[in-house]
């Protein structure tokens, strides 16, 4: 419903909004957001959070750029190395969270800072560019009228939905998020679930990073900055509760679209970047507030 309202609002206030090129642009822009959102949604279902994905995107950007330009590694291999790396980062996050039993907020916040540091070290603060021709296809190519990133997005969304709805370990995400103790007693290996979820978050962030690099065509140290908050906002807007145990991929799509349209529309209306920040922050707070209010309503209605 919010989606509809926003759409109509921008359609009316900006002449550029409804142009096909613009809409395709929006679709392409949200694809990175959407891909990472699937990972973040999994983490939120678990009752956790992953603040490191922005830095993961950055280091994937820098890493692949460096490998391709400075070490002459073919793009495919560079991307593979990057994905293995991002998944490992995710796994390490999950491992520390599960074994040392630390709050996910602190662990992923710390990783975020450390990884950003590594990115600076690799590129020494200087952007890297000059990529092989074929690489640009990922972020800028089309299959028919559809931008390639959108195709990747749809594919990832499908995988995400499949995992949550069909597989047994997808169910475990909900179970552990809803009641970790009871899950343990039901024979679920809670630690392994955590490893899996955070690894997936890292993996999807890695893919998002590859798409971004291919679009911008230069490896920059600022590429992932703030990304995690946009993703978090999209996922919470998409109805996934920060408390864990509740949410669906289909609704996350709506959340992603809302953020995408909001960002795009604000730019078209020439709203200053600073005001955009205020608005985005407000949106995140309202989304989580809405989620909590819903939760409170539910408990007072439960008949005991």
């Amino acid at each position: 419903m919010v989606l509809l309202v926003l759409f109509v609002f921008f359609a009316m206030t900006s002449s550029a909004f409804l142009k096909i090129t613009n809409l395709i642009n929006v679709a392409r822009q949200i694809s990175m957001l959407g891909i990472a959102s699937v990972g973040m949604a999994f983490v939120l279902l678990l009752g956790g959070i992953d603040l490191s994905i922005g830095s993961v995107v950055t280091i994937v950007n820098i890493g692949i750029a460096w490998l391709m330009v400075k070490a002459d590694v073919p793009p495919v291999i560079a991307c593979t190395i990057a994905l293995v790396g991002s998944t490992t980062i995710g796994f390490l996050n999950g491992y520390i969270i599960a074994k040392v039993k630390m709050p996910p907020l602190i662990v992923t916040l710390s990783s975020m800072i450390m990884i950003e540091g590594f990115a600076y070290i690799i590129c020494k603060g200087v952007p890297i560019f000059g990529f092989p021709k074929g690489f640009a296809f990922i972020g800028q190519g089309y299959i028919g009228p559809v931008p390639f990133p959108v195709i990747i997005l749809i594919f990832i969304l499908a995988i995400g939905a499949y995992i949550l709805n069909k597989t047994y370990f997808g169910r475990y995400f909900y179970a552990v998020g809803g009641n970790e103790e009871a899950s343990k007693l039901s024979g679920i290996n809670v630690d392994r679930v955590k490893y899996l979820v955070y690894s997936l978050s890292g993996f999807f962030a890695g893919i998002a990073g590859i798409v971004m690099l291919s679009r911008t065509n230069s490896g920059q140290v600022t590429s992932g900055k703030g990304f995690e908050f946009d993703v978090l906002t999209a996922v919470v807007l998409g109805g996934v509760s920060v408390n864990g145990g509740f949410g669906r991929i289909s609704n996350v799509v709506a959340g992603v679209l809302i953020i995408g349209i909001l960002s795009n529309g604000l730019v078209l209306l020439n709203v200053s970047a600073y005001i955009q920040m205020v608005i985005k922050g407000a949106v995140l707070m309202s989304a989580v507030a809405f989620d909590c209010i819903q939760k409170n309503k539910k408990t007072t209605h439960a008949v005991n």
Partner: protein
Amino acid sequence: MDTGNVILKLENIIKTYPGVTALDGVTIEINRGEVHAIVGENGAGKSTLIKTCTGAVKPDSGNIIIDSNTFKSLTPKESANQGIAVIYQEFNLVGELSIAENIYLGRALRKGITIDRKKMVEKSRAIFNQFGLDINPEELVRNLTVGYQQIVEIAKAMSQDAKILIMDEPSAPLTNQEVEAMYKIVDRLKEKGVTIIYISHRMNEIFRLSDRVTVMRDGEKIDTLDTSSTDINTLVKLMVGRELNETYPGRDFPIMEDILLEVKDLNGNGLHDINFKIQKGEVLGFAGLIGAGRTELAELIFGIKHAVSGTIYMNGKVLNCKSPKQAIDNGIALVPEDRKKLGAHLDISVRENTSIAILQRISKNSVVDKTKENEIAEYYREFLRIKTPHLEQKVKNLSGGNQQKVIIGKWLASDPDLIILDEPTRGIDVGAKFEIYSLVNSLVSEGKTILMISSEMEEIMGMSDRIIVLSEGRITGEFNKKDFDQEKIMAAASNIER
């Protein structure tokens, strides 16, 4: 208005929730200084009724008359101001604070602006002395077991000098010795002129403590009787609308010679030198006071905790469960004591709860076979007679007894050979209790073996073939059915040997 003898009157209270009428025009009069019991099956409306008195719930219509003051509804603060205090089944305690701080939660005793801890500890100790209990008020609440936390809740209400004290299943987690102590407190409160509204499923408590008893069923008040002029059968009949012929269904299945589980020289998790055997088809009861180590023993068998030394054998082979999953794969199931915290996933459906322990078994290539899942959930819904509008209902919306059935269904689905039941009928009404006892019998008839932990003497004597008594981590007694004797079992449970 001349209230005379009546201190609290609820007049024609109606309360509905979406799809459910919790209270359907209920009128009750509570006399000053009496102990008034309220009984009824789960879902009868007892909880909603007391929540109306404490301000946790606002009725749709009706009057609440306290002394000569009439209210359409109360807030918790107004209710407290009117002298109403309540002890709920679910505790309002802060684990990270001490017992004394919890007793004075929100009303900390102060010296100027600093908290007077010494005074709070002193006063708390005085309250516990009334119980005849030696508890250190500086102990952190999170280190207490469920039973002791209940005691802190009772102490909290007592420290507030209530005029009307509402007790909702207060003795549920207490053992017999502590229940006796609690009876004495109720007696003492009565002497002080406190009016007590007492909700319990335990008939013997009703008859020991109450002056009058009100029966509720399906949101209606059925009748109020003088306790001295009625009996258990009449009450039960009014509660369930049918007669119960026996409290414990008979069982006549032969116990097999084969030994299913053998525990040898087990030490760990607070237990010492544990040795026993369970035969196939047996119902082995574990009696003992709170803290005796029964739940701890279950944790060792189920792989939640690891033993320091000793061996467990199942079907002759060494069993070394390092995790609940291994225990489940070996055919052991554990229905835990605290079902809300440990047993059920309240926010997901009956169907999903039922299948959760066996998801991998009903999945092919990681994909859950939803048809099979529905079959299994439907099967257990019928078999266990779980009262739910449909399988997708969230478990938190079911009554306590039905939640317990869902949890049992989950475990039956894993097809265990040994089922450990830890306080299986805690907080469950008479009708549902009987169903669970019958269920235990049908499980035995199918060749399952049961290890039952219970603090209810009658229950454990009525259901077990053999009883082992634990005290302070050691076995202090073993009784065969023909030798069951309440006093002897209690004596073994209270045994403190050093």
